[in-house]
């Protein structure tokens, strides 16, 4: 319990301060989360879900925490010159875990839609937040969820009331900014009510060359027949550690697309838990990682088919170079009685060097008979014949390899339901493969 102790001490000492700088709805589950964390500690590699990522060691160093909510003197609009043609989004910034007050003039939200600081919203609409906050992220199961719930003071709320269709996607840029090694505990709460439609694009960036550790818990509630797309793009640097946990609950007839793309990172662990609790709900879960050097990407997904007639599709692709490590664990649970379930899972991986490691672990647990479930996983290299064919036609080997790798991950990008973003990402991925994106420069979406 070495790594845990300093946080237990910190919490006991500064609980009052933590609470004072947050909101009541966010303070409510803190005590329970603390008790759970004391009991659970950080997950260890002995736990099946954390087999491939040692959590405790990342928390062991001394990180700064902004418990006092001091404002960082930064104007993101100066740092990020966002001038993207064809990408008309409503743009917002979060610096570390603080929602930035400077609102871009282009940001337009339909009536009734709320988007802003979770802390502020919790003060304005306490009942709304109370009825959703912490309801999906169960602190008694996972030490990391408990940890985030203990320390999270702010974050972002997105609320789309029933029947509202948001034409324009919302873009949220998370900027990590600090002068010392720094820890950020952020919370995202998304509520898309009945028949509403929304798209959210979240980009993670690290501005400074210090060690960052960020934990983020996202809770997404999708109402009946609602449509919601969440794109997460990580483009940080090698000394960033990110623990993301995403919890999604879907009601009948809802349709959700989750797409997580890791382009540059240090160590990333994404946990995704989707519960299909209404009939005919559909979830499309995609992910892609391009990792080199010592980068590490671990995606752990769990889809719970609770009721009959739901559909889930999963597609994850990894390209690993140098000494990079990739891990994918995908579990699909079909509960008793969840007939007519259709579930598909695919995980394909390219290992480019001898030192690259890939661990893949697709799992199916099925308790109903009238279902169609399949999963497939492969690890391999580029097709020799295809490379030869291209060389024959005068394409240099290096270029041929790039083309094939590009096509390989292209499938994940093609899942995106935003044309402009798709084009951007194709270009961005190509740049990444050509080594032109060696460190975080702010992704092409923002630049």
């Amino acid at each position, binding site marked *: 319990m070495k790594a845990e102790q300093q946080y237990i001490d910190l919490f006991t000492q500064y609980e009052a301060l933590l609470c004072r700088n947050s909101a009541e709805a966010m303070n409510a589950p803190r005590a329970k989360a603390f008790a759970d964390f004391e009991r659970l500690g950080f997950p260890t590699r002995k736990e*099946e879900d954390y087999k491939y990522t040692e959590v405790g060691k990342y928390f062991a160093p001394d990180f700064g925490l902004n418990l006092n909510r001091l404002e960082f003197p930064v104007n993101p609009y100066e740092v990020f010159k966002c001038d993207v043609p064809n990408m008309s989004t409503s743009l917002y910034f979060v610096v570390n875990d603080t929602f930035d007050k400077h609102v871009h003039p282009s940001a337009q939200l339909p009536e009734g839609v709320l988007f802003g600081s979770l802390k502020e919203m919790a003060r304005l609409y306490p009942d709304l937040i109370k009825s959703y906050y912490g309801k999906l992220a169960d602190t008694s199961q996972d030490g990391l969820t408990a940890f985030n719930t203990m320390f999270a003071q702010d974050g972002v709320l997105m609320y789309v009331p029933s029947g509202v269709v948001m034409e324009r996607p919302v873009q949220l840029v998370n900027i990590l900014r600090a002068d010392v090694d720094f820890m950020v505990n952020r919370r995202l709460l998304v509520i898309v009510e009945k028949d509403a439609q929304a798209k959210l694009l979240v980009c993670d960036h690290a501005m400074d060359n210090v060690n960052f550790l960020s934990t983020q818990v996202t809770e997404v509630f999708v109402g009946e027949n609602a449509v919601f797309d969440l794109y997460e793009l990580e483009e940080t640097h090698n000394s960033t550690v990110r623990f993301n946990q995403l919890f999604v609950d879907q009601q009948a007839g809802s349709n959700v697309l989750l797409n997580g793309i890791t382009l540059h990172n240090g160590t990333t662990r994404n946990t995704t838990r989707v519960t299909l609790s209404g009939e005919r709900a559909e979830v499309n879960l995609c992910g892609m990682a391009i990792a080199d050097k010592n980068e590490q990407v671990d995606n752990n997904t769990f889809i719970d088919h609770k009721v009959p007639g739901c559909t889930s599709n999963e597609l994850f692709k990894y390209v690993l170079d140098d000494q990079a490590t990739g891990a994918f664990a995908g579990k699909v649970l079909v509960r*008793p*009685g969840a*007939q007519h379930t259709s579930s598909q899972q695919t995980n394909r*991986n390219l*290992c*480019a*060097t*001898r030192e*690259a*490691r*890939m*661990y*893949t*672990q*697709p*799992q*199916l*647990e*099925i*308790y*109903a*008979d*009238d*279902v*169609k*479930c*399949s*999963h*497939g*996983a*492969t*690890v*391999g*290299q580029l097709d020799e014949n295809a490379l030869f064919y291209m060389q024959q036609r005068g394409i240099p080997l290096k270029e041929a390899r790039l083309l094939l790798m590009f096509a390989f991950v292209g499938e994940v990008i093609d899942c995106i339901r935003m044309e402009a973003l798709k084009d951007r990402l194709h270009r961005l991925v190509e740049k990444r493969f050509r080594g032109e994106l060696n460190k975080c420069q702010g992704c092409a979406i923002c630049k």
Partner: protein
Amino acid sequence: MQLEPNKYVKELTREKYKYGFTTDIHTDIIDRGLDENVVRLISAKKNEPEWLLNFRLKAYRHWLTMDMPTWAHLTIPDIDYQAISYYADPTRKKEGPKSLDDVDPELLKTFNKLGIPLEEQLALSGMAVDAVMDSVSVKTTFKETLMEKGIIFCSISEAVREHPDLVKKYLGSVVGYRDNFFAALNSAVFSDGSFVYIPKGVRCPMELSTYFRINAAGTGQFERTLIVADDDSYVSYLEGCTAPMRDENQLHAAIVEIVVLDRAEVKYSTVQNWYPGDAEGKGGVYNFVTKRGICKGEGSKLSWTQVETGSAITWKYPSCILSGDNSTAEFYSVAVTNNYQQADTGTKMIHLGRNTRSTIVSKGISAGRSQNSYRGLVRVAERADGARNYSQCDSLLLGSECGAHTFPYMDIHNETAVVEHEATTSKISEDQLFYCNQRGISTEDAVGLIVNGYAKEVLNKLPMEFAVEAQKLLSVSLEGSVG
């Protein structure tokens, strides 16, 4: 879908478990319970040399420090290891039987009921058999014929006496006593089993076969099989198991070790039909088995084929370590669970050598309220250049209260590896049934046809005699589950 089981199905359902008889035969059973004295007693009863006793004691002491594994997708009731008798000898004779006349006639009747060709008159079936009842090897046939070729096929106790060097060299070399809980237990108390040695360049002219049977009540069976195939040799080995119907659960914890040297090939087939318990899930055998082979030599080949229909609980992962360059391993499995049976079975393919290839084909069929899991690992080590694996695991669900699960693991540490895994889960499609019905095939027959077709890829890998038995077993195991 409403179905009426036809007459044939009804008959078979009534037949239930046909090997459920017990044999009234005098058996030398030691008292229940396990401590160091029991380990020493077993060793003494078998006149074992000191090195083997030490091996057992080391295993026993290590076992004491271990806990039952809980990671499998199984609900295992608490097992009282002190309530089991660790040694039962139905021959009660000091000397092993020399000819059929020496063997207890009751015992022969037992094996006749099982349809095991012990008698010379069944020589036509052309199979050399080593029969193990409870804990002791009863009779090995065709020993002389095999001896001419230099093949050693005998009980492991005999091998300890007569070929101590070979046994000493290979025993515990593939499955060490520290390997897992049940392997440690087996290493401490194993009573008998088969030993096979195929010398250099010899192709074993017949199928070697072992039948295992638990007869005495309150005993566990802990047998140990060791197969060594020397350079350029070939052997096909069959294993079959049955047990009487008893309300209490019986424990079976076996170890199979296989060593395959340069360019040798070993084919190991199992039809596992331990008593699965009754329709309410009462009784049945707990089958906790560690099976592992090592493809030690260059270009060696090991093939596991298993048909798992019996046992209340199955915990079994026949594995291959591919350490020789260009070696090949195969795993073909059909696992059927019905009523309250539970199975967690699969394989491990550990690629260490260069250009090693492995194939996994696993077919699970679950019916009733059973739970059937596939658990597999494909590991490609740093130096295993050019490793290739293809895995396929399909599950078929018959009935809405059963479960089918797959837990494949892939750990790839080499960039030249090509590893593929595919899994599907489905029930028998209405279209297929409708098509058969249209052509005048009744629904039950159609289900039988489809299930057999589904498992065919694996059944085809079995030797002829076994394939027929396995096909019958498949249909019997699934009786009453359709509709």
